[in-house]
């Protein structure tokens, strides 16, 4: 057991201690709040360090066998490069969210008088995620996976006094277990091939191509469900908004990434590159493209800030999967270097999304805390009352929209580069699919910018649309620090990608046996050249330097010249009574897209006009539009209906009288006799 491994186990131990400590401290609520939050943050710091050290010492794989679990199967944990990368991602968000929680849970303490519920399940949830990442046998993996799912169910149904929250929680629990079942199935297939639960045995097992495909499909659907891939995403937009914001930051920021981790573990590591079929990558690529587009389109129509962020998580998982799909296709076709680039792009987006989505959910929590509402139509003008939160939220918006100089831009750039490196291929379907995915990525990225102009513009800019928004207040220092940390990471990862990429280069080395460092020609910190300098290069530091110099130059040329600045009332076309209700609304902002993509949205519009004494005189107009999730109505409801019809039929057969049961017995005996005779 090496140092990184001990740190990782210590991180898990701290989470466990926090969870056990919580009920003991129940009497001292404020002490309890601080202890739990800071222990979670500490656990994050340990995980972050463990991940960093694990990635730097990329050769050694540390294992540990804990004497707990089944009598014949102790718990195997290990820290290889893949685990280390995900530990790093986990820790990078857990640390700030822990700090943020110290401030955020104050409200819960004041409202309920206790945070017992959060204090137990939040650390258990982090323990589960850390355990999944470290697991080295299927049994440990599933135990921690279930721990993660169940404790997050309790976080989703935190405010269980409201009916819609209970519904969201139930849907989540159902889908999480369906996903768990599918993953268990994937492990069962691998177990059947290898004969043992440890990953080492599964990895070296001989798989027939049919079994490999079966395991891949089970894993793809199981983890896809957990990761929120369209159309398996329906639990996500319901569950994320109702959880407390610190929990939704973790769920969206890391839990979806743990699902990505599981997918990578099973497909790349356990099934292995040699058993890939060409269409696996195509399937992942197609799923990624559809998630990216549908996720962002649905996000655009939401007026609930946290729901918007939840849908946008689907979009970003899609972008991650586009990178992974490309990596699978290229690796399978024998282009390991390009595959390594695509995988780096995908991993880069994984950590980026953890950071900016965590930041945005924390920002949404701050807004919720300040205004008491998630409805964007009731906000506006918060930039004047919450200057720090709004600036940090803006950083998140720019990062997620893929704008330089923030991190989202770098990972989208890398994904584009790997798509453009597509070598000549025999397969026509693939050679059409890859550029199509690249254009879907472009569209999704641009639509994300629309979405976050809307989110930022409606919530923080303009004038207050309600009393609550007018009386909003800035959040406390815990929460500010919690949001500052990921914002700084977003900037650093955007400006210095060259320092970070060598760190994660070990992952493709382990999974594809190829790395970027073999191909990068100019290897100093200033230039990012994925393959060679002629192919493409990017120098984010020089871009930022250029921008700063230019701004300074313009400011210097303009400052003090001309006349000063004076302020006046808003120009209102001569109409003096401009009210805040006359601003553009969130619904209005997304109206053009609703019209353009009406085939996807199927919006239900209702207009009620009240007339005065004459039809020319309109007293008021009410307009209501609802955009339902198409996947929910077209896929889930029919499945639910069919299930209900079958169960109703079975129930009907149960309720019949004695003679029916006698018939059943008779038919069964007849069938059995027939079977015996035939055999």
């Amino acid at each position, binding site marked *: 057991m090496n140092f990184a491994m001990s740190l990782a186990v210590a991180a898990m131990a701290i989470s466990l201690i926090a969870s056990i400590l919580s009920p003991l401290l129940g009497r001292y609520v404020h002490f309890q709040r601080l202890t739990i939050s800071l222990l979670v943050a500490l656990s994050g710091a340990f995980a972050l360090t463990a991940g960093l050290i694990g990635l730097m010492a990329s050769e050694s794989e540390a294992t540990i066998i804990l004497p707990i679990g089944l009598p014949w199967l102790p718990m195997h944990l290990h820290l290889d490069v893949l685990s280390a990368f995900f530990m790093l991602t986990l820790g990078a968000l857990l640390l700030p969210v822990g700090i943020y929680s110290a401030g955020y849970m104050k409200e819960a303490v004041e409202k309920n008088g206790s945070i017992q519920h959060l204090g137990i399940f939040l650390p258990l949830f982090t323990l589960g995620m850390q355990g999944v990442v470290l697991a080295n046998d299927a049994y440990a993996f599933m135990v921690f996976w279930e721990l993660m799912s169940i404790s997050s169910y309790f976080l989703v149904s935190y405010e269980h006094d409201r009916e819609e929250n209970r519904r969201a929680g139930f849907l989540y629990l159902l889908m999480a277990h369906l996903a768990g079942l599918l993953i268990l199935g994937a492990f069962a297939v691998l177990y059947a091939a290898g004969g043992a639960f440890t990953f080492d045995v599964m990895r070296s097992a001989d798989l027939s191509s049919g079994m490999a495909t079966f395991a891949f499909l089970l894993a793809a659907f199981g983890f896809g469900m957990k990761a929120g891939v369209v159309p398996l995403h329906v639990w996500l937009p319901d569950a994320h908004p109702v959880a407390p914001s610190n929990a939704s930051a973790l769920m969206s920021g890391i839990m979806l990434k743990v699902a990505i981790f599981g997918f990578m573990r099973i497909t790349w590591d356990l099934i292995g590159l040699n058993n890939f079929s060409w269409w696996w990558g195509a399937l992942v690529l197609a799923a990624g493209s559809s998630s990216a587009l549908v996720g962002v389109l649905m996000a655009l129509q939401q007026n609930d800030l946290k729901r918007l962020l939840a849908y946008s998580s689907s979009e970003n998982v899609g972008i991650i999967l586009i990178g992974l799909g490309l990596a699978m296709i290229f690796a399978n076709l024998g282009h390991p270097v390009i595959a390594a680039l695509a995988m780096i792009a995908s991993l880069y987006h994984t950590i980026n999304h953890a950071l900016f989505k965590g930041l945005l959910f924390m920002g949404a929590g701050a807004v919720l805390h300040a205004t008491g509402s998630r409805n964007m139509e009731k906000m506006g003008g918060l930039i004047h009352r919450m200057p720090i939160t709004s600036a940090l939220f803006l950083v998140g918006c720019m990062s997620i929209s893929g704008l330089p100089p923030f991190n989202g831009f770098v990972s989208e750039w890398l994904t584009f580069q790997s798509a*453009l490196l597509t070598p*000549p291929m025999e397969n026509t379907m693939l050679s059409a699919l890859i550029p199509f995915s690249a254009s879907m990525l472009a569209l999704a990225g641009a639509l994300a910018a629309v979405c976050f102009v809307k989110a930022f513009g409606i919530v923080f800019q303009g004038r207050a649309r309600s009393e609550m928004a007018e009386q909003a207040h800035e959040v406390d220092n815990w929460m500010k620090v919690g949001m500052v940390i990921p914002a700084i990471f977003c900037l650093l990862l955007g400006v210095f990608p060259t320092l970070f990429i060598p760190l994660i280069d070990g992952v493709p080395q382990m999974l594809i046996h190829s790395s970027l460092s073999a191909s990068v020609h100019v290897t100093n910190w200033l230039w990012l050249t994925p393959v060679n300098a002629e*192919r493409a290069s990017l120098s984010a530091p020089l871009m930022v330097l250029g921008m700063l110099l230019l701004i300074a130059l313009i400011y210097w040329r303009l400052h003090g010249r001309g006349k000063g600045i004076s302020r006046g009332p808003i120009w209102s076309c001569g109409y003096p009574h401009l009210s805040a209700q006359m601003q553009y609304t969130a619904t209005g902002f997304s109206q053009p897209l609703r019209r*353009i993509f009406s085939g996807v949205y199927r919006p239900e519009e209702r207009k009620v006009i009240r007339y005065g004494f004459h039809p020319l005189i309109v007293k008021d107009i009410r307009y209501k539009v609802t955009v339902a999730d198409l996947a929910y109505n077209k896929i889930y409801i029919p499945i639910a209906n069919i299930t209900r019809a079958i169960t109703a039929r079975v129930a009907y057969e149960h309720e019949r009288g004695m003679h029916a049961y006698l018939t059943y017995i008779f038919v069964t005996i007849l069938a059995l006799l027939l079977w015996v005779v035939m055999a």
Partner: protein
Amino acid sequence: MTDAVIVWLLNLAQVALMVFTAPLITGIVRKLKARLQNRRGSSVLQPYRDLMKLFSKEVLLAENASWIFRSAPYIIFTATVLAVSVVPVILVNLPSSLIADVIAMAALLALARFWLALAGMDIGTGFGGMGASREMTFSAMAEPAMLMSVFVISLGAHSTNLSTMVEYALHLQHLLPSVAFALIAFLMVAVVENGRIPIDNPSTHLEVTMIHEAMILEYSGRHLALIEWASQIKLVLFITLISSLFFPWGMAESVAILPIISALTFWFGKIVFIIILLVIMETLLAKIRIFEVPDYLLTAYVLAFLGMLVHYILEVGV
């Protein structure tokens, strides 16, 4: 060593050329358009005078304008100038195009657009929100078409570096079918990106259908000057991109006096030619209805995608 210095100086000079001739180009567009419409039109130097006037005027801000409203003009201008600085105009081998490739250039323009839209949302007036909503929507629809059409050349050149792409285009023996598709798509997108007729009318205010102008209604003084200048630069940027990527004839491949002077002349000639086409189009066409814009953009996208497919199917390995 001195060679590198000269190249960098030329690079800077080229950026300055683009930035400072941008108002002139806009002036020429307006003059030609006025002539075609039987008007005399203002002098081609009028945009310079407008900018000078705006720079010296007082800035009038709305009461509730935030720091975003005040910083947006600077960011928009900077991002646009930075985007322009990586486009080869005269020299084919531009050292600055190593810093940001064509994807980064598109991202810089997206950055400018993002801040412009935020500025439109900042005051909370109906016009600003409307402009922001429309501009963001339509440019989001234009983004895949634009990237795809540029990627067609990237695929042929095996590079997203603009210098390498231009060099590839310069040495093409004949017009490839994929490039022809890309050219049409890119021309269509350029009209949208610059808000020209038939998509948007740059010379109207207070029209229900306007897009770009609606966002900057609240601006005044030097802020307005910076935004206007940035949009003039953006027009030159797109015209230059068209001429450099699709008609790169005459660009200087070596650093010597004669090729540079001829490249300069070629550049100006090509730009005037494209402007004439633009002006004829703007005079002949009427603005299309706003909800026909997506169909127009879909056409552009399909053309660019066809270009991509044609490249993969017919031209790979050629």
